[in-house]
């Protein structure tokens, strides 16, 4: 056998290096973040419960029975017991996930569309657009959030879509500001100028050059935004200005438990624990997403 040169050694399979895309690198960093993986599993279960609620829930959310105030474990047919009108608590929890999912995803989708469209317009075209939008954002920003959500809910009445409207109306300015700041930061960069000089259209530049640069901060914001919307919905329902009866909502379950705290405490503990687990899951996940997508953030670089 001929002498092995260094170059040959490098060519062996264990020494060939595959170059990874930034996304693959980010994914690798995310996988190493243990708490983020825990968060991911929790979110996965939450999404599964929410999407497949009609299939996996043992009873319809509004089916009542004479078995009222059954504590968890008292009846094998109702693992988590029943509530004050005899509805299966496990089914209510699962359908509550469905409600949370619909509300948070709808509000998030609205905020994304509005944020991207208006934020891009304000940042890119500037001038009158920017001025008018900034004034509107100032006005919405000066509205005390929870107070206005309650006011709007009182006007519209309880209901799934009304909750979405009430939360969305007060949540979009932050997303416009985020997109606008990113557009302003990138619009005068050389590669933008070059693209424009080569005759690229505005929509091409927006999609091909601007959007990829907005994507990372946007993904980080989403992973912290969704749990915020879940809490907002649960909070409004808890205050009696949210989801209408008999639709299930974790906040409403907690509110109706308030009258029975001393005798049937499980009614409050179950929804509270579920909300807390989901929210903690989202914040671990969001922390992992930020560390993975923003390598400059402190924990990823160790400094």
């Amino acid at each position, binding site marked *: 056998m001929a002498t092995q040169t260094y170059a040959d050694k490098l060519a062996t399979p264990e020494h060939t290096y595959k170059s990874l895309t930034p996304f693959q690198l980010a994914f690798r960093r995310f996988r190493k973040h243990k708490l983020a993986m825990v968060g991911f599993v929790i979110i996965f279960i939450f999404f599964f419960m929410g999407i497949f609620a009609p299939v996996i829930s043992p009873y319809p959310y509004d089916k009542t029975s004479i078995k009222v105030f059954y504590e968890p474990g008292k009846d094998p047919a109702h693992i988590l017991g029943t509530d004050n009108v005899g509805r299966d608590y496990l089914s209510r929890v699962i359908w509550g996930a469905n409600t949370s999912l619909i509300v948070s995803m709808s509000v998030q989708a609205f905020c994304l569309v509005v944020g991207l469209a208006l934020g891009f317009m304000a940042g890119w075209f500037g001038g009158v657009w920017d001025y008018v939008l900034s004034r509107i954002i100032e*006005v919405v920003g000066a509205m005390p959030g929870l107070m206005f959500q309650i006011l709007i809910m009182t006007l519209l009445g309880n209901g799934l879509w009304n909750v979405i409207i009430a939360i969305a109306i007060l949540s979009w300015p932050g997303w416009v500001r985020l997109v606008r700041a990113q557009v302003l930061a990138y619009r005068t960069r050389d590669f933008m100028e070059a693209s424009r000089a080569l005759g690229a259209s505005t929509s091409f530049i927006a999609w091909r050059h601007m959007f990829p640069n907005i994507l990372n901060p946007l993904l980080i914001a989403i992973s912290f935004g969704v749990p915020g919307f879940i809490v907002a919905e649960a909070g409004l329902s808890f205050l009696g200005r949210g989801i209408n009866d008999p639709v299930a909502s974790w906040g409403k379950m907690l509110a109706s438990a308030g009258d029975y705290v001393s005798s049937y405490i499980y009614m409050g503990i179950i929804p509270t624990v579920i909300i807390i687990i989901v929210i903690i899951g989202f914040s671990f996940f969001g922390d992992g997403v930020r560390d993975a997508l923003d390598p400059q953030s402190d924990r990823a670089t160790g400094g």
Partner: protein
Amino acid sequence: MARYLLVRFFGFIFVIVTVSFITFFLMWSTPGGPFDESKMPLEGAAKANILKKYGLDQPFYVQWFKYMVNAVQGDFGTSFQYQTPVKDLFLKFWPNSLLLGVLSLAWSFPVGIIIGVIAALKRNTVIDYFITTFALVTSSLPQFAVIFFALAIFAVWLKVVPYGGWIDRTPDLKVLILPVLIFGMGTVGSLARYTRSGMLDVLGQDYIRTARAKGAKRSVVIFKHAMRNMLVPIVTIFLPTVTNILSGSIYVELGFVIPGVGRFFLLSIFARDYPMIMATVLIAATILSVTYLLTDVAYTLLDPRIRLA
């Protein structure tokens, strides 16, 4: 600076006028009015009289304009539910919200900054890991869920605090401790996270190394050189927190039955008490807008590199 403040002042007037108009419009369009009694409906003429007394028979923009003209002169109207001037009600309820808020601020700010600095100095150790996880969890937990757990454990199970709050008693340690802890908890978490990342930023700067190299003690470098530059992230979070505290927390006041502004705002909405709702929203919006202005001015004072635009 003077020119800048003048422009901002006009912006502030515009914002307050618009917010008040939207609030008034929302209230006015909400079905049901303050004198729509379902149990004892008023006679036609009597109702017309009472509506006239409170000016409710006029078009809503006239009502709004009259209200604003009076509000600027310090008259926030008479509460429909209590039949007393809103100003007096505020003087009665606001101190309770303020007491709660100031006490929460008094413990949460030092604690948040201290544990944030500790986490930064001990970065990537068990202590840092514990503090960052604690901060992440406390800053994201929904207040109403924490309140429920606190009440279930301390009021129902251990029976060490009264369940009924401080409606009928003077606030003492027993009724204050849980609300103050829970109200401040979110601040501790987010402040610790801001402080930690701000501190790490500053500690990586060249002038810190220079200061150490010229022989300054570590403690001097941290407290004199690093902490001063930490003020910007602290201001970023300090003023919004103050706003929160001034306008009262609806969840905490509701959960712990505290007669504060947040709780009475909610009760006023249920009762369609227009003057109360308007006054609360106006005051909260004013505090919010002034806070934004103060934050921007504070930035320039703390960091001369930041210019007012």
